[in-house]
């Protein structure tokens, strides 16, 4: 006697069984027992106790939230700062025939270029969508906070007018150092472990 296959039993369970399978089920006690066992198995699967994680991953997720917020803030500040910087450049262009270019201008421009380049590297890597260790995430969050504080100071300086000096160069160079460390935490280590 031919019995129903597992495919047919599953179809019967889904009320999609063939006419032959439905007819056979009425006549065959063994297949009825198989179908009942299938129902039981699924009920047991649904009743399995839930498994919980051994480690708490919230601190890493939270660090990701904080880091993303700091990045957004930095982008906004950078955007505002960019406008202010453009205004300063335009003013300098107008005044250029009458004023000598400060000696630190080239260093300042270079630090800003390096900072922008590191920002681009970080954006391409998209750390928000990556899985990182708790330690790396915590370190990244710390660096993000320091960069955010530095950006606030740079924004304040931009808002105060075009006056700058060697200390402004130093601030931008500090920003480059911090950005480089942040890139190292995210990109370099991830590449090292093959992610």
């Amino acid at each position, binding site marked *: 006697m031919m019995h129903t296959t*597992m495919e047919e039993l599953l179809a019967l369970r889904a009320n999609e069984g063939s006419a032959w399978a439905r007819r056979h089920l009425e006549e065959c006690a063994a297949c009825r027992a198989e179908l009942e066992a299938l129902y039981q*198995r699924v009920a047991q699967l649904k*009743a399995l106790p839930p*498994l919980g994680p*051994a480690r708490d991953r919230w601190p890493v997720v939270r660090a*990701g939230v904080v880091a993303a917020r700091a990045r957004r803030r930095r982008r906004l500040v950078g955007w505002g700062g960019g406008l202010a910087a453009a205004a300063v450049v335009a003013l300098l262009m107008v005044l250029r025939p009458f004023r000598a270019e400060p000696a630190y201008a080239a260093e300042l421009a270079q630090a800003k270029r390096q900072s922008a380049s590191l920002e681009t590297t970080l954006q391409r890597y998209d750390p*928000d969508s990556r*899985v990182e260790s708790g330690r790396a995430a915590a370190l990244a969050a710390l660096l993000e906070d320091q960069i955010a504080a530095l950006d606030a100071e740079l924004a304040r300086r931009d808002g105060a007018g075009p006056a700058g000096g060697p200390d402004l160069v130093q601030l931008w160079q500090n920003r480059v150092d911090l950005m480089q460390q942040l890139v190292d935490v995210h990109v370099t280590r991830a590449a090292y472990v093959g992610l």
Partner: protein
Amino acid sequence: MTISLAVPDVLIARAKTGDVEALEALYRAFETPVYNLARRILRSPEDAEDVLQETFLEVVRSIRSFRGDGHLWGWIRRIASSKALMRVRRHQVRAEDEFDEETTGGSAPVSVPARVDLERALERLSETSRAVVWLHDVEGYTHEEIGEMMGKTVSFSKSQLARAHARLRGMLPGEGAAG
């Protein structure tokens, strides 16, 4: 596992503004269901924890796009399922899947101690089979939805489910050999 987690709308609204306390409350509410879903599909607890982390990073990033026209758990579960299935695919590429098929040999009855329980039997299935049986029979996804999430056909999902049940039946004590 049946989930009937009711999350207050006000909590979701706060989470959408980026309120960290509200986001943590959501994480605590769905931490176990998400991990459980991932762990039932994936062999490694570490992989399941990574899926948990990836899922909530995605939730935090995209919660503003949750329109509230369905249950929040349904939305989070879809993200978690996709993340877990991405890992299954990655493991297949690395040829680390189908462990049971290779070591026990096709669909022949498996010699397993009579005390083996459903949980252990489930562990012995390939990640693909586990994914299909769990998503279909426990989480309630249709074959169409599973096929779409896995990048496969409806027939693939149906045949994987039949295969998984045939293997579970063979491994579980007390389930006869009729048929």
